[in-house]
């Protein structure tokens, strides 16, 4: 029997805000333990939460980017449970009225080859809501320590529909979601810092069956590759169980990315009763059209939309757009360069190849680079107008990357301008023909390739400054009938 996997993801994304969700204390990572705290974070007697508007702005932005319906009222509920990482022993969250409903994440599946665009799909979302993060526990041999620095950091919970059917789709979902969140300035999505965390609900069923199978929740998927690998392993595990006549047990499993195996954490969810009720300390927040419009105005073009546009508007190949669009700053850099020089494809090649290579080599960020769009545009112009050869241009690029000089200045300083002095050229050509009689004879006998040897000699004699086009012309004339 053939089986089909059904996968739903629950993704927690930490919002990038200056302060925590309900107090002015800074949100941060890597600070000394329990320094990002105050009476509100520590839930001292009498402390009260006050909503951070930036967090609502960010989740609305996320919702608008993903095409969600935004609830007219943002309402808060208490989720009651005892755990030492939760200072109040309730979490402020959104229960029955999430701020974002529906929407979708567009994904791209792997193409047939690296240079071919893969299939695109839209994975529907159930909801996105806002809640506060908890602290962090460290367990020792005889005691446990708790750090509340993370407690109260705004956290989005993004829940997908059970609409994915392979590990690749889940991988593509998270990749696209992360790109969207980073480009929207909503989250840094650094998984190592726990800013993006993912749980997966996985079940399998015979192909053609419409009912869902028994689901297993996979936790601890703390890198995007682990998500893909963990899901693939789980699908294989479930398939093997069914094929050997067994049944799937509803359980939560923990995936170990290092060993590539998962282990059962607990069978069936313990029957939690979170006793949700509206938080009486917080007033519902009205989200009107003007607010939404103001946020909508700050939304960047979605990355797949931009990719389609780059391919159409600039006639860029898929592979080059795949390099440019995942990085919003790089995309903007490209567009500005293209605008300045009017040669989009050449600009894209310089950026996608040379600029990225130099940045990687220097371990530099684009924002810190001395190379600006004007540099690349000028360089493209110099090559296109024949002032320098493309060989010389490579050298110029390395120079401007290091010094930030304008290309023209480098060309002048290094004397890289192609020679257009026809008097000198005639002389170099005559000399080269005289020095390569065999090649000259070969060309005259109809061997086009024989010309290259003479051209090489001319270029050498000119110290690279001869314009190859002119060399070709003069050479053909001198060797002509």
């Amino acid at each position, binding site marked *: 029997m053939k089986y089909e996997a059904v996968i739903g993801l629950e993704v927690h994304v930490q919002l990038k805000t200056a302060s925590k969700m309900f107090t002015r204390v800074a949100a941060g990572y890597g600070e000394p333990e329990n320094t990002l705290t105050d009476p509100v974070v520590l839930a001292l*007697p009498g*402390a*009260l939460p*006050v909503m951070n508007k930036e967090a609502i702005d960010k989740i609305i932005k996320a919702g608008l980017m993903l095409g969600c319906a935004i609830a007219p009222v943002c309402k808060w509920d*208490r989720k009651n449970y005892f755990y030492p990482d939760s200072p109040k022993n*309730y979490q402020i969250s959104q229960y029955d009225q999430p701020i974002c409903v529906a929407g979708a994440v567009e994904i791209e599946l792997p193409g047939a080859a690296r240079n071919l665009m893969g299939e695109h799909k839209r994975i529907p979302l159930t909801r996105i809501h806002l809640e506060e993060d908890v602290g962090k526990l460290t367990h020792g041999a005889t005691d446990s320590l708790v750090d509340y620095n993370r407690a109260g950091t705004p956290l989005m919970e993004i829940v997908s529909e059970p609409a994915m059917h392979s590990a690749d789709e889940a991988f593509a979902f998270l990749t696209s979601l992360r790109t969207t969140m980073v480009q929207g300035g909503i989250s840094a999505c650094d998984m190592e810092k726990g800013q993006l965390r993912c749980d997966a609900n996985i079940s399998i069923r015979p192909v053609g069956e419409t009912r869902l199978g028994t689901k297993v929740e996979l936790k601890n998927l703390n890198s995007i590759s682990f998500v893909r690998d963990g899901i693939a392993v789980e699908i294989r595990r479930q398939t093997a169980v069914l094929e050997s006549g067994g049944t799937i047990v509803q359980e939560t499993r923990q995936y170990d990315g290092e060993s590539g195996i998962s282990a059962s954490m607990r069978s069936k969810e313990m029957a939690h009763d979170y006793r949700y009720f509206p938080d009486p300390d917080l007033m519902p927040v009205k989200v009107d059209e003007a607010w939404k419009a103001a946020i909508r105005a700050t939304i960047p073009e979605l990355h797949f939309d931009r990719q389609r546009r780059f391919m159409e508007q600039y006639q860029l190949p898929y592979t080059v757009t795949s390099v440019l669009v995942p990085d919003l700053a790089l995309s903007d850099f490209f567009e500005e360069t293209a605008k300045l020089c009017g040669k989009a494809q050449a600009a894209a090649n310089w950026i996608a190849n040379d600029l990225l290579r130099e940045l990687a080599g220097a371990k530099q960020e684009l924002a810190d680079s001395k190379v600006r769009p004007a540099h690349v545009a000028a360089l493209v112009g110099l090559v296109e107008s024949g002032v320098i050869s493309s060989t010389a241009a490579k050298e110029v690029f390395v120079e401007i990357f290091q010094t930030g000089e304008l290309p023209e200045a480098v060309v002048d300083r290094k004397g890289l301008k192609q020679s257009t002095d026809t008097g000198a050229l005639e002389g170099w050509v005559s000399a080269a023909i005289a020095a390569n009689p065999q090649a000259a004879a070969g060309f005259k006998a109809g061997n086009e390739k024989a010309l290259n040897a003479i051209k090489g000699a001319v270029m050498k004699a000119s110290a690279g400054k001869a314009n190859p086009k002119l060399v070709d012309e003069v050479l053909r004339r001198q060797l002509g009938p």
Partner: protein
Amino acid sequence: MSAGLIFKPVAELSALLEEKKISAVELLQTFIARTTAVEGRIRAFNSRDEAGALALAAASDARRAAGQSRGPLDGIPVGFKDVIAVQGQPLTCSSKMLANFISPYDATVTTKLKAAGAIPWGRLNMDEFAMGSSTENSAFGPTANPWDLTRVPGGSSGGSAAAVAAGEAPVSLGSDTGGSIRQPAALCGIVGLKPTYGLVSRYGLAAFASSLDQIGTFAHTVEDAALLLGAIAGHDERDSTSFKADVPDYCAELKQRKGPWRLGVPREFFGAGLDSEVGAAVKKGIEFYRAAGCEIREVSLPLSAEYAIATYYLIATAEASSNLARYDGIRYGHRSAAAVDAIDIYAKSRAEGFGEEVKRRIILGTHVLSSGYYDAYYLRAQKVRTLIRGEFMRVFQECDALLSPTSPTAAFKLRENASDPLAMYLNDIYTIGVNLAGLPGISVPCGFTGSGLPIGLQVIGQPFREAELLAIASAYEQGHDWHTKHPVL
């Protein structure tokens, strides 16, 4: 001279300070001496920091000498119910759970009072976490009623009421969730004001029931209550439920407003359960207003009379069960020495740290919110609450304020109701609807029983119309001398 100071209204004490007839240090020493003399019998305080308060008094004197007085409250000692945070002082909520907790921060009302030059004077006893009507639920023992030491001062702000009534503090702060300011004020023969929900910031008030709690004032006179209210009222960006309302000069307003007013008398608040002496005194109060030219209308609040207590005990306990979850022995507060792991810390610390009434309400509230019961209890109670508020607001279309008894009886004996929680809950029958509807209410002294126990008249006002409410209460006070009577200790 000092013996005459202890019952003087703040308005007069301020004048004496301003005219430099007394110093703030002398004034505080007077209250320290009085407290030392009577506290053994009253037990209004959980703790006092005399040295700290004297230092603040000296600073106040220095300001005044330099011509930099911060106004009428500069140098005035103010007692704090032990549920309102003052930086560096204990915040016990009269619970073993917080017996050793020192607050590292100031409540907003504390910040405001300090800015006005007032001197936080002692931590006042209460029912544990403000749950009770007699102050007997304190982990540190009961407070006595200054008028009869064998009786309760009311509660939950019993210490705040008793301290003012006994002359240990000129004014004090309390909190009122279902009557916890007005009922003890009535039982101790002083003025107790519960403002509109949202007028005074709750930041720094250890929460019992967030949607009902409100900080208010105890004083000898309506004017003093107004003066203190003016200092603590106003929007606070640290409390999302605080209202963006202008704070008028209540003292000036209450003198300007003269009536006559249209006053409603809720028929249901004079039925079974009301002590006849209390009823008679309150009716005399109503007649006073009628004689003064006010229009007295009988009105009906059937839902409030029938369902307020049940509704209250569903909503308040539900919120409390969640609010008190933070007292877990992990970060601060009592941690059981017998605990061996996290779950054990929770179970044992809370079992040892909380008293019986607090546990009863946490259990009730947990049940009320649990899956399968939420709709029947919590959600239904919220709907009834909306109806009760609507009932009050309809009555206010034809009345400026309502008159009623504050409490069905005068002060009862210590332990008289202690074993019967339901009988105890009935103490709040006339006050509780006011909290559910978020209204302001005030209790003013309106006489004594035959055995010399004070009786309170409750005036219920419209939301955020404290100025009107205070003026109505003041009109009664001006026509009587109950507020000049003090217990002999």
